[in-house]
Each structure stands twice: as structure tokens, then as C-alpha cells.
């Protein structure tokens, strides 16, 4: 075996075979996909994370008594990872929901418990399951970005024959996966907190401040079933009746969602206005001026067309 000349390009034996790590425009076939999933260090991390998360989901479901559901979820999730199904996280979520309600897989196997809502806060198996599902969904979507498409096409702006835009593994930073794990943990805790707030607070429309802790309300109702005298000796009304628990949860969840969205939109909307370029700002101002005067301008143009037609010219025509 002859030694390589200085001009020969010797492939690095550590480099895996396959597509360019820094280029995402090549379309991968199934074989190259497998090679990327298991050979590339950055992608392999996500592959292992997705499979591990599925294993945790499997275990929790199995522990819950739904062995069929555990198998189904694991199969659909693994197929999503290996066969590039972008809809797999949705299916996994729906399957987990179904089998958590119907552990045996058939309607009628559900078990109703009045204390499920109050007892279901910060249970370790639920925390593990939620974290596993979040990690699986994130890993699955990122894997899909590595092997198929990371940048969506913009509807009508898509040009035929456009190459896919995969996310090259070379762009994965060293701490990306750690950030994902941390973010997943925060998201799980935040979800628990939101649920705790939605079930621990009840809406009382008749009160000045229409929210109060559900525990206080219950204790008040138990202590003063009808009415009670106050310090001044006069009888006061019993505490106002709160909304039913389901309605209260609905109002609270929708309210939290609404106000969070409004605040976020306000913050980022204002930031966007601040970051707006001169041309975009000029367009906004111009469009505002047009919006205020469009009726008058449209009428003027109709008179212009009429005048031209009357003067013997042809009708200008238009879409307005």
C-alpha cells in the first residue's frame, strides 16, 4: 500500500459516510436516513433521546395496566423516528390520552374518581410521563428536520423543484440537547402549575374580585351554610356561589390563555414596531392613509373613468 501523496485527499476515518454534515439540500433515501440517525453524533443524541422517552412512556403505561397501549405507543413512536412520520407525535399524544382514560383499550374500562383532580397534582409518574412525551415530541420534530425538512415552504411562494431544506447536523450546538432537557422540565412543571391554578381557584362572578381559592370557598360554605351576622350585628348574605367546577376550569384556562397571548402579542408587537425598517414603516403609514380615504379616492376614480368615457375616450377598466 503506497503512502498518500501530499495532494491526495484522504478521508478522515472518524468521519461517517453519508451526506455532507454542513449541507442540508440533499434529499436522503431510507438507507442514508438510517446512517444519519445512528452514525452522526448530533443526530444520534436525538435518536437515543426519542427512543428513551418512548421507553419511559411504555413503562408508565405498562405500569398503569395498559400493556396494549404501551405497545401501540412505542410502535407508532418508533415508526415515526425511523420512517420520518411527522404526524407521529400527534398520534402518540392521542394514544396516550386514550389509554390513560381507558387503560384496557375499550370504553367501559375507565375508572371515575372524584379526587382525581385534587390528587393528580405533581404525581411522579405523571411528571415522568409528561417529561417523556415532551422530550419525545421535541426529538421527533428535530429528527424530522435532520432527515427530511426543517424549513417549511411558504405556500404559493414555493417554486417547483426547490430542493429540501434539511437542518445540517453540523449546526447543532454543544448545549442544545441540554437546553432541550431543561426546557422540557420547566414546561412540565409549568403545566402542573397551570393545572394546579385552574383547579385550585374558582370563579365567583358575584364578587368584587371574581377569583378565590376553592378551599376557602368550601370552608366558608361549610361554616356558614345560610347566613351569618357580622360584627355590626346585621345579617349578611352567604358567600356568592361560584361557577360549577367544570365551567370554572374552562373560564380560567381560557382566561389564562387569552391574557398570556395578549401580553405576549403586545410585547412582541411593540418590539416588532421598534425593529421595523424605514420602508415598512412608510408602508404602514401609507396604508393607513389609504384606509382612511379609500372611499373618496375610489369615488374620484369612478368620476375620472366616467369623464374619460364622456370625453370620447375608452373606458380605462379596472378591478375595483
Amino acid at each position, binding site marked *: 500500500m503506497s503512502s498518500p501523496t501530499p495532494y491526495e485527499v484522504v478521508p478522515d476515518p472518524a468521519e461517517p459516510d453519508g451526506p455532507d454534515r454542513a449541507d442540508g439540500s440533499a434529499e436522503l433515501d431510507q438507507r442514508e436516513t438510517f446512517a444519519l440517525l445512528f452514525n452522526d453524533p448530533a443526530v444520534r443524541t436525538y435518536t437515543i433521546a426519542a427512543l428513551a422517552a418512548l421507553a419511559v412512556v411504555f413503562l408508565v403505561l405498562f405500569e398503569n395496566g395498559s400493556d396494549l397501549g404501551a405497545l401501540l405507543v412505542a410502535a407508532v413512536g418508533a415508526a415515526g423516528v425511523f420512517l420520518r412520520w411527522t404526524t407521529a407525535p400527534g398520534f402518540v399524544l392521542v394514544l396516550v390520552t386514550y389509554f390513560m382514560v381507558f387503560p384496557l383499550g375499550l370504553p367501559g374500562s375507565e375508572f371515575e374518581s372524584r379526587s382525581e383532580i385534587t390528587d393528580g397534582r405533581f404525581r411522579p409518574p405523571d411528571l415522568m410521563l409528561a417529561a417523556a412525551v415532551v422530550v419525545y415530541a421535541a426529538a421527533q420534530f428535530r429528527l424530522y428536520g435532520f432527515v427530511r425538512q426543517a424549513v417549511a415552504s411558504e405556500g404559493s411562494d414555493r417554486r417547483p423543484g426547490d430542493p429540501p431544506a434539511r437542518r445540517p447536523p453540523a449546526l447543532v450546538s454543544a448545549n442544545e440537547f441540554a437546553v432541550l432537557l431543561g426546557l422540557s422540565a420547566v414546561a412540565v412543571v409549568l403545566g402542573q402549575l397551570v393545572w394546579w391554578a385552574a383547579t385550585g381557584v374558582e370563579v365567583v362572578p358575584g364578587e368584587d374580585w371574581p377569583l378565590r381559592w376553592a378551599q376557602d370557598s368550601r370552608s366558608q360554605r361549610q361554616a356558614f351554610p345560610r347566613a351569618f351576622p357580622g360584627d355590626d350585628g346585621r345579617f349578611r348574605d352567604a358567600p356568592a356561589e361560584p361557577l360549577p367546577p367544570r365551567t370554572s376550569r374552562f373560564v380560567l384556562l381560557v382566561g389564562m390563555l387569552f391574557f398570556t397571548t395578549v401580553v405576549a402579542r403586545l410585547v412582541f408587537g411593540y418590539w416588532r414596531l421598534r425593529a421595523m425598517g424605514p*420602508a415598512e414603516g412608510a408602508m404602514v403609514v401609507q396604508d393607513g392613509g389609504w384606509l382612511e380615504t379609500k372611499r373618496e379616492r375610489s369615488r374620484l376614480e369612478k368620476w375620472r373613468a366616467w369623464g374619460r368615457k364622456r370625453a370620447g375616450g375608452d373606458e380605462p377598466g379596472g378591478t375595483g
Partner: protein
Amino acid sequence: MLTPRGTWFLVVSGIVLAVGALVVPLYSVVPVLLALALLAWFAAEWVAFQTRSCAAVSRLTVTRTVLQGGREVPMVWAGLAFEVRVTVRNPSTFDIPFAVVEDRPAVATDRARGAGRRFVRIPAGGEVELTHTVTAPSLGVLRFEGVQVRVADPNGFFLRRVFLRDPAEYLVLPPLTDDEGRQRATKRFNTLPPPGAHRLRLPGSGSELLDLRDYRPGDPPKTIAWKASARRDRLITKEFENDVPVRTVLFLDTTDGVRLGPPGNTLLTRMAAVAAGVAQSAAANRDLVGLTTFDERGAAGASPARTKLHMIGVLRRLAEASALQPGADGVPAEVLTARAYPLARELYPELMDKRANAMPLSRLWLPLLDRRFGWLVPVMVIVGVLLFYLGLRSLYLGVFRPEAFADRGAWDTQALLGARQWLLRALNFAASLTPASWPFLLKVGWLLLMLAVTFFPPATLGLIFWFFFGARGWFGERRRELTERKQLAALFALLDRAGPDPIERYVADDRAYAARAAAFLQQHLLRCPVPLYDETGRYRYRCPGKAAVLAGALVRAVGRARDNELYVVFADLAELGPDLAPVVRACRAARARHHHLLVIVPWPADVPPPDEADGPPVVATPDEDDRPTRGPRARPRRPEGGLARLVRESLTRQYHEAFRALRRELGRAGATVMRVSDGDPVRVVLDRLDRLRGLRTRR
């Protein structure tokens, strides 16, 4: 922007949240906890993306450098690869972890190396560079619009596309031939003639012997050939060659007819390439070269000169002429919109976004009163109210006649009771038409509508008709067309800095809109399909006016000429027919002054030359044009048949006849006519030029 993937994820998570929180919480709270965790993660990704989008993506800048031969150049040479280097800077303190940076390719360029697209991480305060090598096969103007940057989150939920506009135009000059390096290998002389010296047949005061002739009184004695005189026993005089520069003037046709065709492959581009070769060949022979470009409106030119700077100027003018585009007169506004709208969305995404350039529903509303029959609706409304009033009045005065009652009070009571009864019946009727199972608000609305129908039938029907007539504008093709046109009109108004005034003008006036949209397309060097024939079926781009302009330019050149001028006309004159008369007269005038005249006609690519074997013509359908001619996907092109073949043969025959007539007419006037086909190299033209000049040059 939320991508479809993000939308689906949000929808599924929202459904699971609703089911988990409202339907099944007593069985298991896990679904709602899962959904809340997923939504919290989604929200966190959204906040991160929005933060980067506002802080970093909005502040990206771009610079462009074009290098040829290793140094930055303001213009490039056709056929030679040049490097385009684009640098995208991120001055913010946030990095962009994943972006696709894509340099928008200039029209009529071939990519030689590099993809023009990179998948990058743009670090905070840093920059990324995109380098690719491009070749411009033909001369003209290259326009680089800018760089498109698409930023996405790692999960593919969000996407933001910005276009960093950095318009830059570069002239593509014809390849500069090296005076010594491109000489023919069979040259017969190793020395260049002195500058400006050019040997011609006409006798003059040069140093090379041209001929011997009999002595004429007045000939200087020093020109007598004494040996020849002694041999013949009579005085013989030597004649010497004339050493004067040959002035070559090129006339280039730039009318709309020669601008038609795909970018970089028009008749004008081919003629300009040949003209550039002729000009450089003449300059290599130390001749003076001038250039006159003409169209139907006038001519503009540069006087013959010999300096390097002048030659560069001539090449620049040729490149600029090559980039000219045909006018868009007669192109329907819809066609222009179909071309201009995608371009505008690509180049000006933030200005075409509905947040900045909106189309309100009220503007899409179809105004009923613009139609003559629309005035029936107000009439119906008024009539409806009148009928209601008259009905009540007749009920009051007619049914319950006052004379039938003993006193006024009884009559009043009876009339009021009757009216009340009538109203109650109407209410009952309306209530009977309202389904009881509907929700409360819907039921109230429906009841009010039924009451309106009961009390004011014509007015209510008229108003319902008015609503449905106007609401038709919110749907369908008109909505799309009007929205696109308004957005383009607003963009044009902004680019022209004209304020909101022209927006409605462009929406309402097809002519003004078409002119502006065509100018927009031409500014961005994008061609739109132009109709070749007018309403009467005549060819719209015959351009007969150019004959008079060309004749005037020729006559002016003759008037300014000294001697030994060579006029080379690059023009599509074949179809002018009787309109050619001014050119013929000008050619005669030029020949009368002993100037040489060469007319070069560009031969259309789709017409076989006259000397080519007349095989069955083939035609390619549009979808076949992209097929390879070789390889497994190649399909044999089907021969034309039937009527199409007849028409094509007839048109070909007609063009051949026209060309023969042109050659005959101009030949009679003393001009030489030659055609340049698509594949003819410039060398062929130069050889013919050499033959025309009597092989008197050193080549």
C-alpha cells in the same frame, strides 16, 4: 409565521387540552397535564423564536462583492466565470442558530461552482459568507437583487423569511479580445502597420507600390519609374498605396422587434455580440470604430475613435443595449399581475405582508349602486316603508271606519284593539317560523329577521339582496385579483414615494397600472409574455419606423465621413418590405461617396436557413422543452403535422422570400447583405468582412 407543522401541533394539543380539562378529568388528569406541558414547551419555543426574530433577524445586513480575475470589478466579461461573495452580518447580541441564506441568482446567468445557498448559524455580532461562481454567457446587464434569509426554529414550528435587498447591477461586456493573442495563426506579416496606416486600393502617398500606369502631365517626376519607362520607351508613373485609417461605423438595431426572446438569447444580444467582435477586430487593425444605436424613435451614437477608453465605452453601450427589453404595450393587466406579484412577494416580503399592506373587507365589498339595477334596492326599501305606513293607515281609517262608531272614543279603542291584534298575529307568525331548539341569541336574531320580513317584506328582501350582492366580493377570483392588485399598487406608490394617491388609480385604471407594472418588471429585468399579434392579426413588432431612422443616421454618417468608411448595419430588416425605401436611398448615397456598406441580418432561430435541407420541421411543446435530448428520460420530439406544419412552412417560405427581396434591393444599391444564424461565430463574420474589404488588411 406559524408553519403547517406548528399549526397541527397546536391544534392537536389544544384538542387534547380541551378534552382533558373538560371531559375526562375525573378519569385521568394525565391528558391535560400532557397537553399543558406540550403547550408550555411550544410557548417557550415561540418566545425564543420571536426574540431572535425581533432582535436579530430584523437587523441583518448584507454586502456583496463581485470578483473576476482575483480582484473586485465593477463589470464583468461574458463567458468568463466570476465570483460573487455575499456577506451577511448579524450586529445584534442574539445568535441565529439555523438559517438558510440564499443569494438570488441574476437573470441569464449560469452557476459554475457553489450552490448559492448555505445552511448556517449566524453568530451574535458575527457574519457568514456565501461564495459562488457564476458565468454570464451573453452580454447585457446583470442585476443582483439581494439575499433571502429563511430562519426557522429547530422543530420546524416557526419560519420567518426576510429579503435583504441590496440591488446591484453589473454590465456584462463582451469578451475582450487580445490584440496579439487572438491573431490568426496563418498571418502573413509579423509586423503591425504603423498606427492609423491602412493600405487601400486607392492610390495615395503611401510607401508600398500599388501599380504602374502611363505618365500623365502633372505627375511629380519622383514617381516616374525610369527602368520601366526605358523598357517600354514611354514614361511610366508609379502609384503608391494610400495610408489612411479605415473608419468603421456600426449601426445597431435596438427596436422592440429584436428585443423579443428569452433573456440572453435575443436577436439583439446576438447582434450586439457580433458587433462587439467586429468592433474589436477593427480596433485590432488600428481602425477607428464608432457605434450608433437606433430604434423607432431616434438614434444615438458615438463618433469613431481609436482609444482604449472609447472601445470600453462602445462595449458598455453594446452591453446596455443588449439588456433592453420590449415594451409591454398590449399586455393584459392580469398577465402583468401574475408576473409581478410573486416577484414582489419574493423581493419585498415585509411590504407585501398583510400587516403592512392590508386589504380590508370593506374595500372588497361589491357596491350595488354602481349597477343600474342596484337602484331598485333603495326604491324597494322606501316602497316597503311606505307600504307599511299606508297599511297601518288604511287599517286605521279604512277597516275601522269612524262613521260606524257612535263616538270617537269607541272608534279609537276599536282601532287600537284591531291594530294590536294585527301586530300580535304578525308576531305569532314570525315566532312560528323560529325553531324553538335554537340557542337564545340565534333565536332572537332569527325572530327579528322574520319580523322584518313580515312587516317590511320588500325592504327586507331588498336589504338581503344588497347584502348577498356585496358579500360576493369577499370570495372568488375577484377577491384574489383585487387584493393582489391593491398590494402591488401600494408597493408601486411606496417605491415612487407618491403617497396613497396612486393606489386607487392603479386599481381602477388598467392602463396606468399596466404601465407601472411593466416598468416594475423591466426594472428587475424580468420579462413578461408580450402579444406578438394585434387584434387584426398583424405582427406588432415589425417596427417600420426604424427604416427612416436608420436612413437618417446613415446619411448623417455619410455627411460627416472623410473617406474609406465602412458602415456595418446590424438590423432586422427582412420584413420591412416597401418600408425599406429610405434605407435603400441612404445606401445609394453612401455608395456614391465610395463607402462600403455591409448589412448583417440576424436570422431567427426558429426559421431554417435558406440553404438548409428542408426536412420536416419539428416543434417542441412547452413541457418538452425541459426534457433532456439524451439519456433515459429523452423522448423523440414528434414532428409537426397538419395545419401547424402548413402554417410554419408558409411562414418560413414567406420569410425566405422577404430576405431574398431585401438582399436584392440592397444589393442593387451597392450594399452587401449577410445573415448571421444563431450558431455562427463572430469569426465567420470577420472572415466575410475581410473578404469584403478586399483582403487588403494584413490578415
